[in-house]
Every structure is written in structure tokens, then in C-alpha cells.
């Protein structure tokens, strides 16, 4: 985009502009799917399995159906479909087997929700229990009970590699160089075993869908979903209904974080709507159901070893990731794939072997979360580097600097030479250590049982998407020369649409108030985008939009050239006008052009102006099934986190005092919203580091399906001090040089905190969350001297 004619500076781009929807949201006026009602609509309540693994013998709903207001009860046999985005392993309701406690086995439909909830209690299900498996290790044993006997029959995308006859939903391998040779050359080797728990997305609006299957065979859906087009295409594929017969509407979304990507409950609701006589039905989950019956975030165990030369060069890296996908691995197969191909992070490592599995267990199914695969593989990699630094007695910053990928020079783990404008990882690292003031840990002189310490971790992230993922955009002028911006990318808090609107206002030199981006996304009215995931929105849909802007400009100039009797290439657009280059006093306001130009004698030319643009991923490829080599992504964003924490050795309490976030985003379109993302990402990562875990009891049931016992960071827990900085190394094929960053801002936070603790105490914590109990236990095991010393200091302070 050219800088505008007047003043030579950007008017909007780079400015701190609040999100366009802020007022509606703050005032509580924004309408979410949860708020929507259709007259005559029925309500659906799910009945959940009480067994982790069992055959369904019978379902008796004779009592339920007699509850006043109840219309129907539906079971899995009525609608025996399988759905999913990457592997179609999900049923709509348990067909003959239940796979986890919470698995929906029946749906009650009633005229009102209270009747449906009352009737759901009265449904009696008889089960034949089967042996369950609750951990990946158990599930991989030779004679383990198999969850999906028909794994080979499920629809799947070619990038995925399930092992029928086992519980392995996907296996991925990344091979670079010669791993054995690499380890043979290493002077020192560090090893670790890591463990991450199941967590919740904890978005504010639980999943909710309204579906209306009409007599005509047309289906209309309203859903709290991130990606209406993915919902449409997956409904079409799995229910065998032409895509054009399906309309998916997405109003305001109360948070997503990846958990509302792919397909949610839309297929179930649509089939229920048909089953009850083509009436609209609404299915909304309670928070407890959201924890127990809807997809959450997979747990992981990993083993890794890293070989280094004496001078701190990483010469070999081996890692094995086992993702606990729960009962369905639909999206989680891609988490395992991503963790595998991106296992080497920001580093140039010559010899790599990373294996990654998604494994079925009899627990709640899982799906994507912000940055998936990366928080997991970075937790392993970035802590291993700190372990190596300690082993080699080197500085964690310097050892990172020595091994960083060099744009234009190095090849990534997947064997791609990194583009020369991919960013400046060295500068990112330097800025983090400067802003953090990279000093050694200090004991609080007033309270010698409290240590303050700093830790850092880097991260790199690109979108994990199919190689042909595409986007489109439309700019449509209105009579007053205001613009309707139509994009497929959804808005659930990221700020992308505000950035896109700013680009349009800038391009035409019109006030931002004259650029309209409606909250509703609809497969009928919005142009296509593959999904709103992977930090891709501003990049892919932004490029499509820039092309649409150029298209509209061309059309405007064509009309104006006739009106002004000059060639099109002598015209420019700025300040809401078309003007003659070099003679800006000869101009026509856009209002007179965008619906067609009328000459004084009444004759007219042109017509309403609509610009159209598109983007496709281009040179990204499938990855080689044997080696994982190939080009998986359209950009890499480098960045990282620094933290200062205060650790109480005696009580295990950890307080984060300071957060440093630096990312090379190419170009900051809107620094205010970028900072918002970075702070949000930091707090989310901190919450994951210190608090969040879904706890399963011995029967496989979620013990803490609520925010009282599943603790998420509150305002009081967040640090007071944020230092956020953006490096701007433009990516030449990015929109205005920018790259996506929405996910990266949380990836390195948990491991930076673990590294700070390690640096202060030498105690390595390889399991999240770092609860006080876990920390005190680790200190007493690994550094009993430190604990004794702290306790003695405490007693001294008392007397």
C-alpha cells in the first residue's frame, strides 16, 4: 500500500486504535449465539455416559418422554454418523459403545430447557463395562483395549497416519541429518522426561449451536464457531449434503482459542432438527458439560535428549511426544504432527529425530488450543537448552544466540532454507535480555527464604494449515463512499478485523468510521476463508483484502479517467478523492465515482464499485511421510518471553513480577491491539504454567469441571510490570510486511517461568502446572540444603 499523498505519513496504520467492537462488548450489547432465539425453537439436553468404556445394552427413555414438554429422545443409532476435520473419528451420540465418562449417549428434545433437563435425569442406560485405558502408556501396550476398532474405515486427510488395530490415531516422524552420528559427536548429552496435563480452553461462552433443517433440505446453522466455512464443508462431507444447501452463521463469539475451530456440535443439532420434524433446535452446554463432554486440550508426555559440543553447539536432538488425545483425536492428530515437525524451534540443529504420536484413551476428547504443538514442544526444547547451559556452565542467552536459525542461511528442521526476510531472531533475543535486565538470581535480604529470578525462552510459530488453504475478501462501496469490508476471518477477540478496517481506511484516505466490518460471518454473505486459526487471519485474509483494495482502486480509476479525461495511470486515490498526479487540485470525491459517474448532461459511466481479492498458501507442501521434510508454513514469527519471578522456597508460592515479550511481527498494524494480544497471551501462558489442570479421578471422571477448582489466573495473579516490544523486519510478501502473532505470545511463557525457577534453585520442574506442592516437593528432593537453609532463615526472622 502506498503511503498517502497528504503528509506522507500513515494516517491509521501503526496507530493505537481501540477495537471497533469494544463499545458494544463493554456495554453488553453484543449478541452472541447464546443470546439468540428463534420462535418455536426446541431445546436439547444431552445425557452423558457414566462409564469410561462400555457397550450400551439398552437405553430406556419411557419415563423421560412422559415429562410435559418433552418432544423426543434421540440416541446414537438414530444418527450413526462419524465426523471430524482431520480424522473422522467422532460420533454424534455414542453409537453402541461409550468411550469416556461424559460421552453423550442420548439427546432429549423439549419445548423448554427445564423440561429437557428434567427428562434427561430420567433416562436409564444399561451398560456392559469394558476395560478402560487412562494413560498413553497403558493405551500403547500390546494387549491394550482398543477404542476404535474401525480406525481404518474413518475418513481422513492424507497428511495423517493412523495405525489401525492399535490406539495410535497418528504417527509422525521428522528426520534430519544423521541422529546417531550427531550423538556420537556430542561432547555432552542432557536428557529429560516431561509431562503436561489436560487443560481447558476456558473461553467465556460455552459451545452453543442453533440448527434448522428445513423441509427443502436446506440447513441453516447459528454457531459459536471460529470457522463457518470449515463447519459447512465438514457438515457437507460427513452428512453427505451439498455444501450449497448449508448456511452457517457466526455472530459474536465469546472466545475460541482454537477450541471452536473445525466442527463442533453442528452436525448433531442439524440431525436432531430433522429428526423432530424440521424444527429449529438449540443445544447449549453448561460449563460442567464443557469440561466433561466437549473437546478439551490434550495432555502430553515426552522424552528428549540433546547432544552438544563443548562450545555449546547443539549437534543432535531427539524427542518423542505422546499426546493423550482422549476418546477422539479428530483435531489432535494435527497437534501431534505439528509438535513433531516444529520440534527444533528457533534453532539450527543438523541432526534431528522427532517422533510424535496421538494416542486414544478413555478420557474426554481433545482438540486444538492456541499455538497447538508449540507450547508442548517448546516446553521440552527450551528447558533442555537451559539444562544444557547449566551442564556446560554457559549462559542461557549466549547458548541460544549460538544456535539460532539465520534467515537466508540456515535450513529449518523440515529442511527448508529460511527466507531471508523471515525476521531477526538475534535481535529478538538481545531485546528480551536487555529489557529483562538479565542479571543473576537474588535472595530477598528481608526474607532470605524468597528468591527473585529471571528466565527466558524463545519461540517460533507459523500457521499449521493444509498446503492449499485459501482466503478471499471483498470491498464494496456504499452510496456515501463508505465501504463494507467483507472477509471470512472471524473475530473472537484477536483484533484482526480492526487491523483490516484500518488498511481499507488508509488505502482510500477515508475516515475509519466509514469502514464497516459487520460482526456476523455467514457462508452465504461472507467471502470464503479456510479457517480462522493458526495466527493466519491478518496475513492471509489481509493479503486477500489488499488485492481487493487494488481491484477496487483500478475500477475507481477507470471511471474517474473518463470523468476527468486523463489516463488511469495518471490518477491516484487519497483523502477520499481521486486526483490527477501532480495536480491534486483536479479531483473528484469518491462519492461521485463509486456508484458510477454522471456527466452534467445526465449521461453516465461505470457503476457500483466492488473490489475482489484472494490468497492461497502457494509454495507450502505436504510433508514427506517418511522424513517429515517439506515446507509446512507460509511464515515463521520469531519471538520470546522473559520473566522475573519471586519464589517462596518454604510455601512454594510463585509470583510473576515482570513480563517481557518481544516478537518480530514485520509491521505493527495496530500496536495497541498487539499489546493486548501479548498481555493476554502472557497471562494465559502464566496460568497454564502455574495453575491449570483438569484432574481425573480413578474412574476417569473429571474431578474439577468448574472454575472454582479448575483455577484460571485472575487479575490479582497477573504481573504489574509488562515490557512489550515489537521488532519490525518486514516480510516482503506479507500484508504491509507483517506476520501473524496471536498464538506465539503464549507459547514460551510456561517454559520461561520453569527456566526462571531452574536458574534460581537448580531445581528442574518438567511437569505443569508448577503447583506450590510440586515445587516444594522438588526442592526438598533435589535441593534439601536449600530448603533447610530457608527454614532456618525463617526461624531466625521470628526471634
Amino acid at each position, binding site marked *: 500500500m502506498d503511503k498517502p499523498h497528504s503528509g506522507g505519513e500513515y494516517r491509521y496504520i501503526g496507530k493505537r486504535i481501540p477495537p471497533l467492537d469494544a463499545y458494544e462488548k463493554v456495554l453488553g450489547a453484543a449478541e452472541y449465539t447464546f443470546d439468540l432465539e428463534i420462535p418455536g425453537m426446541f431445546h436439547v439436553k444431552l445425557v452423558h455416559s457414566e462409564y469410561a468404556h462400555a457397550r450400551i445394552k439398552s437405553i430406556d427413555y419411557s419415563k423421560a418422554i412422559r415429562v410435559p414438554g418433552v418432544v423426543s429422545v434421540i440416541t446414537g443409532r438414530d444418527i450413526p454418523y462419524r465426523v471430524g476435520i482431520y480424522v473422522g473419528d467422532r460420533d454424534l451420540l455414542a453409537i453402541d459403545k461409550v468411550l469416556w465418562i461424559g460421552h453423550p449417549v442420548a439427546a432429549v428434545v423439549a419445548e423448554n430447557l427445564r423440561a429437557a433437563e428434567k427428562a434427561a435425569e430420567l433416562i436409564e442406560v444399561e451398560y456392559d463395562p469394558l476395560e478402560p485405558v487412562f494413560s498413553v502408556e497403558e493405551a500403547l501396550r500390546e494387549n491394550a483395549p482398543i477404542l476404535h476398532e474401525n480406525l481404518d474405515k474413518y475418513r481422513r486427510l492424507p497428511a495423517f497416519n493412523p495405525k489401525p488395530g492399535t490406539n495410535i490415531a497418528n504417527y509422525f516422524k521428522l528426520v534430519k541429518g544423521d541422529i546417531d552420528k550427531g550423538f556420537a559427536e556430542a561432547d555432552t548429552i542432557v536428557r529429560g522426561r516431561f509431562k503436561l496435563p489436560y487443560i481447558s480452553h476456558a473461553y467465556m461462552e460455552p459451545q452453543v449451536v442453533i440448527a434448522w433443517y428445513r423441509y427443502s433440505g436446506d440447513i441453516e446453522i447459528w454457531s459459536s464457531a471460529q470457522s463457518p466455512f470449515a463447519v459447512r464443508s465438514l457438515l457437507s462431507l460427513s452428512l453427505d449434503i451439498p455444501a450449497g444447501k448449508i448456511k452457517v452463521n457466526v455472530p459474536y463469539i465469546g472466545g475460541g482459542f482454537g477450541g471452536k475451530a473445525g466442527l463442533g456440535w453442528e452436525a448433531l443439532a442439524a440431525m436432531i432438527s430433522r429428526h423432530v420434524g424440521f424444527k429449529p433446535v438449540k443445544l447449549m452446554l453448561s460449563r460442567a458439560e464443557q469440561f466433561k463432554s466437549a473437546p478439551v486440550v490434550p495432555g502430553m508426555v515426552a522424552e528428549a535428549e540433546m547432544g552438544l559440543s563443548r562450545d555449546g553447539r547443539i549437534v543432535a536432538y531427539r524427542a518423542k511426544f505422546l499426546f493423550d488425545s482422549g476418546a477422539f483425536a479428530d483435531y489432535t492428530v494435527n497437534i501431534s504432527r505439528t509438535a513433531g515437525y516444529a520440534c527444533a524451534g528457533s534453532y539450527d540443529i543438523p541432526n534431528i529425530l522427532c517422533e510424535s504420536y496421538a494416542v486414544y484413551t478413555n478420557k474426554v476428547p481433545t482438540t486444538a488450543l492456541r499455538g497447538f504443538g508449540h507450547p508442548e514442544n517448546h516446553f521440552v526444547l527450551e528447558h533442555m537448552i537451559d539444562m544444557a547451559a547449566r551442564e556446560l556452565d554457559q549462559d542461557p542467552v549466549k547458548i541460544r544466540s549460538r544456535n539460532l536459525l539465520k534467515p537466508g542461511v540456515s535450513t529449518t528442521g523440515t529442511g527448508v532454507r529460511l527466507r531471508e526476510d523471515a525476521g531477526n531472531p538475534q535481535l529478538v533475543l538481545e531485546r528480551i535480555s536487555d529489557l529483562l535486565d538479565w542479571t543473576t538470581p537474588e535472595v530477598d535480604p528481608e526474607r532470605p527464604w524468597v528468591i527473585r529470578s529471571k528466565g527466558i525462552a524463545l519461540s517460533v510459530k507459523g500457521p499449521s494449515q493444509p498446503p492449499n488453504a485459501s482466503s478471499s475478501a471483498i470491498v464494496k462501496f456504499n452510496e456515501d463512499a463508505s465501504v463494507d469490508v467483507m472477509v471470512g476471518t472471524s473475530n473472537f477477540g484477536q483484533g484482526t478485523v480492526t487491523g483490516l478496517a484500518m488498511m481499507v481506511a488508509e488505502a482510500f484516505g477515508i475516515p475509519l468510521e466509514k469502514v464497516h466490518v459487520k460482526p456476523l460471518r455467514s457462508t452465504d454473505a461472507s467471502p470464503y476463508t479456510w479457517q480462522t486459526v493458526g495466527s493466519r487471519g491478518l496475513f492471509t485474509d489481509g493479503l486477500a483484502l489488499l488485492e481487493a483494495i487494488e481491484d477496487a482502486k483500478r475500477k475507481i480509476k477507470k471511471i474517474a479517467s473518463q470523468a476527468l479525461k486523463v489516463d488511469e495511470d495518471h490518477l491516484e486515490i487519497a483523502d477520499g478523492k481521486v486526483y490527477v498526479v501532480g495536480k491534486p487540485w483536479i479531483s473528484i470525491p469518491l462519492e461521485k465515482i463509486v456508484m458510477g459517474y454522471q456527466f452534467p448532461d445526465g449521461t453516465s459511466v461505470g457503476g457500483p464499485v466492488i473490489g475482489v481479492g484472494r490468497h492461497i498458501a502457494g509454495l507450502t507442501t505436504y510433508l514427506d511421510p517418511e522424513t517429515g521434510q517439506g515446507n509446512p508454513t507460509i511464515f515463521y514469527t520469531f519471538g520470546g518471553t522473559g520473566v522475573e519471578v519471586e519464589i517462596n522456597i518454604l510455601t*512454594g508460592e510463585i509470583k510473576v513480577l515482570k513480563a517481557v515479550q518481544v516478537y518480530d511481527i514485520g509491521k505493527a498494524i495496530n500496536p495497541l491491539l498487539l499489546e493486548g494480544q501479548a498481555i493476554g497471551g502472557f497471562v494465559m501462558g502464566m496460568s497454564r504454567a502455574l*495453575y491449570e489442570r483438569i484432574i481425573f479421578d480413578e474412574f476417569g471422571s473429571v474431578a474439577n469441571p468448574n472454575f*472454582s477448582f479448575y483455577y484460571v489466573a485472575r487479575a490479582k495473579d497477573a504481573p504489574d510490570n509488562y515490557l512489550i516490544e515489537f521488532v519490525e523486519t518486514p516480510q516482503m510478501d506479507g500484508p504491509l510486511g507483517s506476520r501473524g502473532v496471536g498464538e506465539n505470545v503464549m507459547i514460551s511463557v510456561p517454559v520461561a517461568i520453569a527456566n526462571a525457577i531452574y536458574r534460581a534453585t537448580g531445581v528442574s520442574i518438567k511437569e505443569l502446572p508448577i*503447583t*506450590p506442592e510440586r515445587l516444594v516437593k522438588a526442592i526438598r528432593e533435589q535441593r534439601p540444603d536449600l530448603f533447610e537453609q530457608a527454614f532456618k532463615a525463617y526461624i531466625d526472622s521470628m526471634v
Partner: protein
Amino acid sequence: MSSPYITLPEFKYLRPKTLDEALAILDRYGEDAKIMAGGVALLSFMKERLIEAKYVVDIKGVRELHYIRFSEGDGLRIGATVTFSEIEDYILQRGLVQRFRALYQGIKKLSDPVLRNRSTLAGNVVEALPIVDGPCLLSVFDSELKIVSSSGSRVVSVSEFISDEGFIDLKPNEIVVEIHIKDPPKGFVSTFRKYNPVTEFSMVSVGMSAIREGGRDLRDVRCVLCAATPKPVRLRRFEDLVSRVSDLRSSIDELLSSVESEAAGFIQDDPYASREFKLHIAKMLILDSLKELRSL
């Protein structure tokens, strides 16, 4: 909480204007009627279908139950519908923070301001679960509850009122109308500590009070262990021991082992922390409290 339900069950909402009217409703409907003050606990439990109520009797409209009074020698008297925020403001504005320090500290640490604007001390005491702080805070002081029914009134101490986790001495026709926190004696100091970095609720809480008469030594120490225990538990042997201590440093081991032997029987593992860790934290909070009371 963890309700699979989105709706509340059906009930009739009643809003009496006088205490007599409220009591008459209880007489008429018995167990089918439940008193609601802030409603924070009642409505949550109803949503989970753990409490059934055909009639919800909202006493927030009963003006005679909405008061806080303080007088020298008598102490604080708090009506049943007074919220935590109102108590917090009153203590601050009347300059009573030092006198009722543990109560004030406890309220400041209680959940968040939105909930404190709604939740009542009386409701908290009637809930009587380890997750609420009210009973613990009252146990640091000499506190009594005034309970009335249409046939009369009675006064009961907090420790007698709560017999076990969630079990209280209240008949279906009775209402807790007032909480009386007696004016502490001269030299009285108190503190409240809450350890909750793992869930929204406290894992272990400790309330402690003592008499200080110059010097740092404490006498008449009262130590209440809460949250990890089914109900507030006084550690009486520890109290005796610590009230007699002259050299704290040489007594630490003895004090801690008395805490351990007295508290251990009450503390259980749960999914959020082990029994051992809770005991460790209990000891740390007790040491912290001692340290603070000695330095006030």
C-alpha cells in the same frame, strides 16, 4: 460449582417485609421453604439440585435485619442480611480495623468484590462448609449467633452451631438473625492467613488471636485451623504450649510437633493437595501468624 444444568428448578419466590412474616412462611411451609440472604450458596446448590426448595424466602427486604452496630464493651452486632462489603466498610470507617483485625483481613481476602457485595456473613455461617471463610473468622473471636423462630429466640456459639462439615444446629422454622462478635479484651491482637494458590478456595487457613501485654510474648493464644479441616478446629494443646513459651527458638520443634499431632487427624488428601502438604502449609501459616502477632 459443577452443575450440568443451565436452568434452576422451579420454585416460588417470596419476599417478606418483616421478620414475623418470614417466620410465618417458615411455619407454614417447613422444609419446603429456604431462607435466602445473598443467595450465593443457596442458588448454586439449587442449580446443582443439591438443595430442593419449593419456596425461596428472600429476606433482603426485611429491614429490621439490615444493621451493623458497635458499642464499647459489647462489640459488633451484625444483622442477617449485611454483606461482607458492608462489614468491611463499617470496620474501616468506624476505626475498628485493629480491634477486629482478623475479621477485616479475612473479608479483604474473601473471593472478589463482586461476590462480597452480595454474600452475607450470616449466609456464610449457615453454609458451614470448609470452603467458606465466615465460620473461621468468627472462631477467632468470641462470637455468638442469635436464632429466632415464631416461638422464641436462642443464642448459640459458632462452634456449637456447626457440628460438622455442612451440618448446623438450625431447625426448619428458625432464622439466624444476628451475629454478635464480642468486644475483645485489652491487649487483644488477631490475624488471619489464607493459602489459596491452587483453587479459588482456601487450602489451609489459620486464624490466631492473643493478648499482648508489652514485650513480644503472647498469652491466651487462640489458634483456629480451617479449610483443610471439616470445620474450624481449635488447636488447644498448641495454644497452651505457645502461651507458656519463653524462648521461642528452642521451642519451635515442640510447637510444630504439637500442631502436627493435633491437626493431623482432621486433614485429608484431596485432588488438589496431599495431606502432608496441607500439614506443612498449616505449620507455615501458624509460624507466620505467631511472627506477626509478636511484632504488632
